[in-house]
């Protein structure tokens, strides 16, 4: 597109600016889209309704609750944050329309936490986020393809990639289940393929491998998965899919008295959501899962404690992984906005994350990989186990964090110490 040209600054303009600066207040006026002297407008697309919505539909409200908390405590350099949520029903075409609406009609400053790999792929290309230079912060997908900073110069990931997750699981399988018959059920798109490639590179071979097409998950399809897994004698089953697919898989398996060692991918393993989808706690008991965050029930964790308090006051939702994710996205966003300074611009926000993003406080145990050359957020996992109460505990009793990349890099045990939660949950970074 043909951009606007800079106008020749005349002496008159310069004089006006000079006079204006005399009256500058603590709330600088901004010419940037979505930013006024008193507000910052942000937007998110995610499935608020439809089959894929359980769990995901809590993220926006949780983020908004955190923003309300920040707003009630002075906002970001005096500006209140407004979050506009749009329901894309997990449909790529609808996500395009909704994102266009956010950018063209609502005129948001930036996107925060857009969810879904297919949807985000479609949005990025069709809406032209890079071309429009719209910052897209902390996208909720683990597809490693989004870590291509040249292709996605205004996007920043937050979840460790599916490839990273599969690499950590691969190491865990080798260390703990050598010689067992392995099964795999995976979503047959970039989600599962990302993981599949990493398993292959790690030399993990599955005795039974079952792809499923996104949107086809149901009790009936789960029946075929369980039949194949059982027939193949799979003793350890790795599942890489969404929660709405995990639920029928576990329920059908339990009904069939098929009880392998489950290793549930991080995306589809939230115990509270699984319970809401009808999976009894007893069925989940003992299931393993890679995790990046502490359990949402762990009130000994300063982040969890603070977020729970905010949730109670501003959101009143049952506190689970999705609420935690939403709150944490809010925390990261506020830090990014602060790091960009009072004169908020889209370019400045992107630069701020590149320059300072790796130092942001975040609930996750693993480091943030942001830099001038990397748009990658968190980079590691620890293994956890679901207990008899439906709570997630570190496997072996302590958090053994492993970090890696989405490529051929090694899986390394990490001693990373995450930054402390800002006092009262209110960032003061600059």
């Amino acid at each position: 597109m043909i951009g606007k040209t800079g106008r020749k600054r005349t002496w008159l303009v310069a004089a006006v600016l000079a006079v204006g600066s005399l009256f500058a207040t603590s709330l600088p006026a901004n010419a940037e889209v979505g930013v006024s002297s008193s507000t910052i407008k942000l937007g998110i697309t995610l499935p608020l309704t439809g089959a894929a919505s359980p769990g995901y539909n809590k993220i926006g409200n949780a983020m908004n609750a955190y923003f309300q908390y920040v707003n009630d405590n002075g906002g970001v350099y005096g500006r209140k944050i407004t979050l506009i949520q749009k329901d894309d029903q997990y449909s790529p075409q609808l996500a395009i329309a909704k994102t266009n609406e956010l950018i063209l009609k609502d005129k948001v400053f930036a996107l925060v936490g857009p969810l879904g790999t297919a949807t985000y792929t479609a949005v990025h290309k069709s809406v032209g986020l890079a071309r429009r230079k719209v910052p897209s912060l902390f996208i909720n997908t683990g597809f490693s393809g989004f870590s291509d900073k040249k292709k996605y110069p205004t996007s920043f990931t937050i979840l460790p990639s599916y490839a990273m997750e599969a690499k950590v699981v691969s190491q865990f399988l080798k260390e703990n289940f050598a010689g067992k018959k392995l099964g795999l059920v995976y979503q047959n798109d970039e989600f599962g393929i990302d993981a599949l490639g990493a398993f292959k590179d790690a030399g993990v071979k599955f005795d039974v491998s079952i792809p499923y097409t996104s949107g086809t998950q149901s009790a009936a399809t789960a029946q075929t998965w369980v039949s194949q897994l059982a027939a193949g004698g799979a003793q350890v089953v790795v599942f890489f899919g969404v929660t709405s697919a995990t639920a029928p898989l576990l329920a059908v398996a339990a009904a069939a008295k098929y009880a392998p060692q489950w290793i549930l991918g991080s995306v589809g393993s939230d115990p509270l959501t699984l319970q809401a989808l009808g999976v009894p706690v007893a069925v989940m008991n003992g299931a393993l899962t890679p995790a990046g965050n502490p359990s949402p029930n762990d009130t000994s964790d300063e982040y969890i404690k603070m977020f729970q308090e905010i949730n109670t006051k501003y959101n009143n939702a049952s506190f689970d992984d999705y609420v935690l994710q939403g709150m944490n996205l809010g925390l990261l966003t506020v830090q990014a906005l602060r790091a960009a300074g009072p004169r908020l611009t889209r370019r400045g926000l992107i630069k701020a994350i590149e320059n300072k993003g790796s130092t942001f406080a975040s609930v996750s145990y693993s480091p943030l990989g942001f830099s001038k050359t990397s748009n990658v957020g968190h980079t590691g996992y620890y293994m956890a186990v679901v207990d008899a109460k439906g709570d997630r505990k570190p496997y072996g009793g302590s958090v053994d964090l492993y970090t890696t990349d989405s490529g051929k890099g090694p899986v390394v045990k990490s001693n990373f110490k995450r930054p402390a939660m800002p006092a009262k949950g209110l960032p003061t970074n600059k």
Partner: protein
Amino acid sequence: MSKIKFKRSITLVAASSLLSLTVVSVPTVARAADPACSTANFVTTCLGATSDTAPYMMMVPANFNGTVYLYSHGYRPNVPVPAGIPGYGGYTVTNTPEPAPGGNATIIGTLLGKGYAVMGSGFARQGWNADSAVKTNVELVGLFKKQFSKTEKVVAWGSSLGGFITQALAEQYPDLIDAAAPLCMASNIEPLMTMAGDALWGIKTFFDPTIKGGNYSAGAAGYAEAMGDLVKVFTAIGALQAAFAANPTAPAWPATSKVPDALKAIPSRSALVLVALMSGVPMQSAHFDSTSAPSVLSVSQQTSFQLAINPAFAALENLANAAALAVLATHDLELQSGGAIFDNTATNYAARVAEEQFVWSSALSGASATAGMLGYLAVAPRAKADPAAVAKMRTLVTHSGEVEIPTILFTGVADPVTTAGNQQSVIDKYEEYYAEKWAEAKANKRITGDYKKPDNNLLILWNFTPEKYTKYTALGAPDTSVPAATGTNHCNFTTSQLLAIADLLAYAADNGKNMSGGALRTKLRKAGNMTLDRGYSAPALKYYGD
């Protein structure tokens, strides 16, 4: 998923998509250099023929204000299509002149009422006729000025192929034309025929290998082959439509398909979606939005319908249009070029859909199914062009994108025939040209100290689709009897939109630049569904990515 009964056949949509036959009735006239004119109700109507025998029509009001609109009509097949051919039959070759889009009486009446004149040629040759049509139009402008000496401004507009012709006029004759509006335009013939050829080859390969798909024989034999292809294509599409309706989740493959049984385990709808994606046909059609589902379905079924089934119906509806163009235009271009013009021997269809396959994963039945289908296409016999014929085709007029007069582009983002990528290709070329001009202006400033920012002559408008528009009956069946949604179908513009374009042309001709600012936005808002969005970029035609 239960059976779906359509309220109307999808393939019938194709019958009217390419043709603009609703034109003003023209009496037979002597084809002479001087037109035969008559005046009635304060309007002088002149009929005649240019030196190439192309009939034309001029309509001039008594209060003629000096500006005339020159309209170029869209693609009309250059051969008759027998009535018995399903989906498209019953076309007779015509060169009836068309002085306004579709002969729209409201548009003609409105323009005449404002003191503008209108004119248009029927062109001497049908089919892809841009080279001769440009010459015809140039001559027609001269004849009009000779006949009506009050003429001061000429604005050109045209739809589809007529949009191509209009763009060519704007590029080549900036002294003759004061402003131009290529609408739902075709871009250069090679990219366009690549899209059509890919679509046709995909249908042939998956659904009926006896479709010839090009390299037609000379003369009557070739004509028969092309008509035979039309029958086969629409028979296959009809079979797919019936299968989709009977079992949308796992529709059967047409009986004419020869793909291996292993491939037939994949729902045929997924193969159709792949054909649409690899050829660049949009995934939203006249009646299918790829976003909605019948409310009578369960929540999980609705998600499945949204992601997997609705897009397949969209692909079906759009491919019916694209395939018709493919057969008829391929036959025509081969006649003009002397041999086969479509070549996909080096086309990597997997690369073509590398990113889109993830977006449409559910509709494609997942990555494994997609890999299986692409693997089949990779080893399927390819179409090979005649290099001499391709070289000849490349001598036909092409667009440079370089316009020095105000030019207005407008198209639907889900046009299945001249996809939005056609308009985008001209935009991209103009941007390069503009960047060069700007750089020259800056360089000149360094030398002479004088600086003038070059005028941006392009006003780019898009007709976006609504978020959701598929209509469902009370039983949950898609209802294709309702009008096509805005932004979809070929050249699917409202009279209000076309009148807005006409106003913008008049403004541009009078002022030497396009309308902008609040006045423009108000005009677009009143017309409805006309969007000015400099940040939007339509998907490029696949040809440019190969």
